[in-house]
């Protein structure tokens, strides 16, 4: 690794507690819209915060939430057995169920013509058209019968070209697929010492995309946030060590319009924002 970008924690939003802008038990998902509004999904609730960190909306979901994503004015929520679609104010617009295909929805993404829903039970990604018609699965042709997720979560992100970037932690890789399920490429290797590698039994657990094709990942078992360039070379360790409680696991991650990295801390139940401050020699 040559020059390493440096990041600092800019601020945090929400936290553990009983207040209306807080979560009592779990924070599992984070998303950001084009205005920089934060959507936090935890317990059985979605909370929306503006760019200054003020809560603007909150609403309850019909089941505990495991994922959240924003598509224009619509907020999609992943749950056990279904997804729900809300308008930003919390009015429910739709729900999708698809029998056994939607076991536990732990990530949601969009292409120009479809919706991708990660099913952690089947360890693959379900691809639907915009009306909810199933098209194909991504990852089910994997030699292991799906992504290897001892951590219990399938997470992915979709870039502007519709390429699906998936964390495959048991293989210590980030894999790239077309929405039709064709494997395009991958990067990553095991290494418990070199930060360029992915440590432990199964990392990275979560993935997001930043500007310039950069890939942001989070890790567990020594929680860490890292950024790789579009070629899969480590660009920065954003946060590690004492920055997180060692019990942090499956930290969902998103990137806001200013390229700040937003991490859902599952112990503090906070969204934590990290911003780039320079490049170290």
């Amino acid at each position, binding site marked *: 690794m040559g020059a390493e970008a440096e990041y600092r924690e800019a601020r945090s939003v929400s936290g553990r507690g009983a207040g209306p802008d807080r979560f009592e038990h779990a924070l599992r998902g984070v998303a950001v819209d084009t205005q920089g509004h934060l959507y936090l999904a935890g317990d059985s609730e979605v909370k929306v915060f503006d760019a200054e960190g003020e809560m603007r909306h909150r609403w309850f979901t019909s089941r505990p939430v495991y994922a959240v994503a924003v598509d224009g004015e619509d907020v999609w929520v992943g749950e056990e057995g279904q997804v729900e679609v809300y308008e930003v104010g919390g009015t429910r617009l739709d729900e999708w169920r698809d029998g056994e295909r939607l076991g536990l929805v732990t990530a949601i993404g969009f292409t120009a013509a479809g919706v991708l829903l990660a099913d952690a039970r089947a360890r693959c990604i379900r691809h639907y058209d915009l009306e909810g018609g199933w098209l194909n699965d991504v990852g089910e042709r*994997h*030699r*292991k019968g799906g992504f*290897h997720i*001892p*951590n219990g979560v399938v997470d992915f992100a979709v870039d502007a070209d519709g390429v699906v970037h998936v964390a495959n932690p*048991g*293989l*210590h*890789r980030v894999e790239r697929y077309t929405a039709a399920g064709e494997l395009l490429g991958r990067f990553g*290797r*095991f*290494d*418990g*010492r*070199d930060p360029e*590698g992915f*440590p*432990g*039994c*199964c990392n990275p657990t979560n993935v997001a995309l930043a500007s310039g094709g950069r890939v942001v990942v989070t890790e*567990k*078992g020594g929680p860490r946030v890292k950024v790789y360039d579009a070629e899969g070379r480590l660009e920065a360790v954003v946060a590690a060590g004492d920055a997180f409680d*060692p*019990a*942090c*696991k499956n930290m969902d991650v998103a990137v806001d319009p200013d390229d700040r990295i937003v991490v859902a801390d599952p112990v503090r139940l906070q969204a934590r924002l990290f911003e780039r401050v320079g490049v170290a020699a």
Partner: protein
Amino acid sequence: MSGMTRRDVLGHAARGTVLAGLGGMCGFLAVKARGTDAWQLDPGKCVNSRLGALGVDVCESCASECVLGLSAVRAVNELSQCGRCYVCPAYYDVTSAVGPDGLPSEKLCPRDAIERYPIGWADPDDPANNYYEYVIDETLCNGCGRCVMACKEPYGLGSIRLEVRHDLCLDCNRCAISTACPEDAYERLPVS
């Protein structure tokens, strides 16, 4: 063992399970014959397996304090809960240098008591893309607990725990492990 088939592995595991079950049953019957209490280890108290006990040193009292030459406490891998990972943190020292095969160069168990088998055919060009079975050889394990600590959430799935082998335990009135256990996890409890 690279030539083992899934059938071999399953057969091996099944025979091990049956033998362990027979041993446990013999021990159980022996305990029943002697009395109604037995020394048992509470995994929810043991620092090696207790969730949330992170960043602490492994406790090896079960291995070091038992009056037997090889402790009556052994590690057990609950296969139904095992992730069958390519890089198992209980098998490998995942902080050791990476070898030319891309795997950690050192094992974690000081007695090399864990065996690793690929399940089915392992692709030599992509061995990571396979499941692996981890079987603990109870004739070698001394219950040091290192694998238990390494497999604990969030590092692993917590499929390994320490158990008292009642067919080996001498059922001492004043158990040396119990006396030494810093967490009061080693208790004499009724056998129901």
